[in-house]
């Protein structure tokens, strides 16, 4: 029995990791980094969203996004140097998206956005002296910020002013911009010399801005801090810019400086990030074929060009992992939420389920360009919860008890008869013995026969189960126990039947450890091996992640047996988990099923696995599924034992081999009564994780206490017994010599009499 945690009222807390480590982990994820085009735009156009809008045919929205970044979209668009285009990811495989053409299309086909709601004018007044491209944009920016703006200029009207500011601009652009400008709430004082106007009027304005020429006339040799577009000495907003993008960006910086100056702050005060940035985004180009630019002559062609955009983003992890898909969360968010969950002392721990649903398979760390390791986060969280007494036992108890069974009642450790010390020990793993005992037997007999120096046998569990459950103390005990058993055998070379056992044992046993596949490659497959002349999909076990040698060895053996090994997506190190790993199968059946489906969607072919848990889960889903050893030893692979049979198989294999190989007679315990089950009861028990041995113990208790009740309607009897942390109820009828079980159910809650 494993101790249930004592109480929900235990208020212990331990941090999973430091704030710095949390941040370092979060930093690995680049999902929220800006796409390449966005990052290149100093005006921070949400280029990706704008292109998405065009590709959806929504030119209004596209224009609204574009309009947001500048008061004069027509002018900007006409001459923009478009640094975004050069950064387009598609350049790596073909031609990048014509972003500027799409902006032009937005301007042509989109309805101008409605004016923003009526904001109150600010009470600080701004004056602009002289016209150039920078002051034109600045006038627009300040007007958008609701400063009352007055422009003093030499020209006699909008058209002349625009021509002076934006020389070389096509006529239709000027015409469109004239409209824009004339509708803005800006006061123009025409036919004025800006320098003279400055001398006369500047004192009556709070914010003074000047075209660079004018500024130089006023203050020859003035020093401008171009980062903020301010000459501090004269408290003058001005500066030199280059090109239309430079002017538009300069005006943005200047307008922000105006805000600071209006509050009597230094213009450099708290400005945040400005201009273009470097992005750390990763975007896979897998499956992206090169394409060419489509000239945007009408709506349809603009939409077609926009559709070439691949909407850069990183979702490598979530694409491959059913668990992340289930919770619809990226590792960064999940880590933060798990971290917070673990830090809560009282109240609901909403993230317990996600913490326990990860299969700890490590696929994410391979798929992520930066190696984000969600498995480690969930594993640490589980251990942390065990430490603080916050880990519920219920989700893992069945698996843990199963492991204790493997390493106790069903455990076997014997040298090969005739050898005091053996050169090898065969460690098939708990799942192989539970699911395919005949295969284990055949493999062991084969190894004994064909290997020199004696092969011991050890039937048990490597400890993966308690490790996955976060029960580190139990794991340490298991490691110690196994190491002692291995020492008793004289520390032979270990031959494991399972890649997870190989991985687990390699982490402690200071011994030579091989997978049985390596041995089979060295000594050849036995003659009676079953050939399978057909195409198969090899499913790589998560226990073999990072173990290329194993992955390749399996394929060579499969091919030597006639299999045509096909390539599947997510193979090798990228392989998803079957749903057994991390105990997902026990903690969250829904997620486990989604994991299995994700594995199976990669191919319609029969699946060849080299982990018995994978083989079992695929077979349960109705897929033709076999374990490599079932092929090698010609044993049948068409059975899916239920939970009781999995225990029975382990025990009976042990007893059988003790008799067959070591000549030890095992005296079967006679219950003294028979127990039969209706088919409904059997299915129900498998589903509810109730073992036949549990039912037998309840009936044994019944025979001692006589405690039962009769249901008058059905005439059936009910009894119950508390076994460990669980109360089991059995509904039965008495038959000749024993019982026939109709139903079984359980609860963990204790139910007691009250006076």
């Amino acid at each position, binding site marked *: 029995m494993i101790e249930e945690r004592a109480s929900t009222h235990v208020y212990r807390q331990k941090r999973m990791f430091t704030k710095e480590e949390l941040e370092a982990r979060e930093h690995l994820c680049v999902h929220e980094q800006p796409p390449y085009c966005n990052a290149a735009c100093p005006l921070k156009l949400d280029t990706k969203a704008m292109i998405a809008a065009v590709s959806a045919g929504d030119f209004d929205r596209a224009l609204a996004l574009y309009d947001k970044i500048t008061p004069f979209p027509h002018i900007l668009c006409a001459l923009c140097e478009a640094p975004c285009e050069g950064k387009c990811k598609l350049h790596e495989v073909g031609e990048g998206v014509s972003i500027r053409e799409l902006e032009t299309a937005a301007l042509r086909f989109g309805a101008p956005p409605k004016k923003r709601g009526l904001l109150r004018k600010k009470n600080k007044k701004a004056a602009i002296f002289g016209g150039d491209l920078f002051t034109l944009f600045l006038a627009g920016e300040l007007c958008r910020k609701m400063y009352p703006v007055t422009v003093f200029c030499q020209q006699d009207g909008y058209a002349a002013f625009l021509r002076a500011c934006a020389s070389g601009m096509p006529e239709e652009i000027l015409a469109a911009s004239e409209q824009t400008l004339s509708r803005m709430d800006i006061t123009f004082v025409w036919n004025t010399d800006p320098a003279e106007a400055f001398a006369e009027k500047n004192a009556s304005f709070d914010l003074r801005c000047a075209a660079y020429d004018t500024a130089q006339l006023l203050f020859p040799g003035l020093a401008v801090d171009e980062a903020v577009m301010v000459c501090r000495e004269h408290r003058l907003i001005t500066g030199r810019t280059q090109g239309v993008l430079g002017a538009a960006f300069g005006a943005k910086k200047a307008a922000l400086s105006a805000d600071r100056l209006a509050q009597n702050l230094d213009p450099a005060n708290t400005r945040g990030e400005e201009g273009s940035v470097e992005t750390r985004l990763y975007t896979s180009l897998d499956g992206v074929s090169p394409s060419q630019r489509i000239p945007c002559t009408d709506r349809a062609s603009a939409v077609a060009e926009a559709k070439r955009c691949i909407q850069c983003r990183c979702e490598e992890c979530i694409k491959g992992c059913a668990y992340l898909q289930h919770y619809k969360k990226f590792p960064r968010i999940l880590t933060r939420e798990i971290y917070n969950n673990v830090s809560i002392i009282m109240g*609901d721990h909403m993230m317990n389920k996600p913490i326990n649903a990860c299969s700890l398979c490590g696929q994410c760390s391979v798929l992520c360009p930066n190696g984000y390791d969600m498995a480690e986060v969930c594993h640490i969280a589980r251990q942390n919860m065990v430490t603080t007494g916050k880990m519920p036992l219920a989700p893992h108890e069945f698996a843990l008890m199963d492991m204790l069974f493997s390493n106790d009642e069903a455990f076997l450790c014997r040298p090969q008869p005739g050898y005091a010390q053996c050169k090898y020990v065969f460690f098939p793993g708990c799942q192989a013995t539970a699911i395919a005992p005949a295969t284990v037997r055949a493999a062991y007999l084969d190894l004994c026969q064909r290997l020199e120096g004696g092969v011991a046998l050890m039937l048990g569990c490597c400890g993966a189960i308690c490790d996955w459950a976060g029960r580190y103390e139990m794991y340490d005990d298991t490691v110690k126990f196994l190491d002692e058993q291995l020492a008793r055998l004289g520390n032979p070379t270990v031959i494991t039947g399972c890649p997870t056992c190989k991985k687990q044992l390699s982490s402690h046993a200071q011994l030579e450890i091989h997978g049985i596949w390596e041995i089979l490659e060295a000594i050849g497959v036995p003659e009676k091996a079953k050939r399978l002349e057909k195409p198969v999909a090899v499913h790589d076990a998560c226990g073999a992640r990072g173990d290329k040698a194993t992955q390749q060895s399996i394929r060579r053996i499969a091919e030597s047996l006639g299999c045509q090994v096909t390539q599947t997506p997510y193979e090798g190190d990228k392989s998803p988990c079957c749903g057994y790993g991390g105990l997902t199968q026990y903690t969250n059946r829904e997620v486990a099923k989604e994991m299995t489906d994700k594995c199976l969607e990669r191919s319609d072919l029969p699946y060849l696995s080299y982990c018995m848990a994978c083989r079992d889960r695929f077979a349960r889903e109705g897929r033709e599924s076999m374990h490599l050893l079932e092929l090698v030893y010609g044993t049948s692979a068409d059975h899916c034992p239920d939970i009781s049979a999995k225990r029975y198989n382990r025990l009976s294999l042990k007893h059988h081999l003790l008799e067959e190989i070591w000549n030890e007679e095992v005296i079967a315990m006679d219950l003294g009564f028979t127990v039969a089950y209706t088919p409904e009861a059997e299915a129900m028990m498998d589903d509810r994780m109730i073992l036949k041995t549990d039912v037998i113990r309840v009936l044994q208790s019944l025979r001692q206490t006589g405690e039962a*009740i009769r249901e*008058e309607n059905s005439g059936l009897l*009910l009894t119950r017994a508390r076994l460990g942390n669980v109360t089991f109820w059995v509904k039965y009828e008495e038959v000749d010599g024993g019982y026939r079980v109709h139903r079984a159910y359980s*609860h963990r809650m204790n*139910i007691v*009499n*009250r006076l």
Partner: protein
Amino acid sequence: MAEKNYYTIDPDGKLTCMKCGVRLEKGKAKFLYLDNGFPVELPVCPKCGFIYVPEELALGKVLSVEKALEDK
């Protein structure tokens, strides 16, 4: 003062205790889990105190309370 019961079922004379040979009656019981307790009324044998937890209760209310407490 009557204690509030979280759950009540009346056996309606449909259950018999095999040991005592009497009908189960509605009786006082208590759910206990992880140091939390809830008073309930369940079918109880008036002689030996055997408490009957029906399947629907075990798989319904009891399970959901267990789960809620496990994640506290």
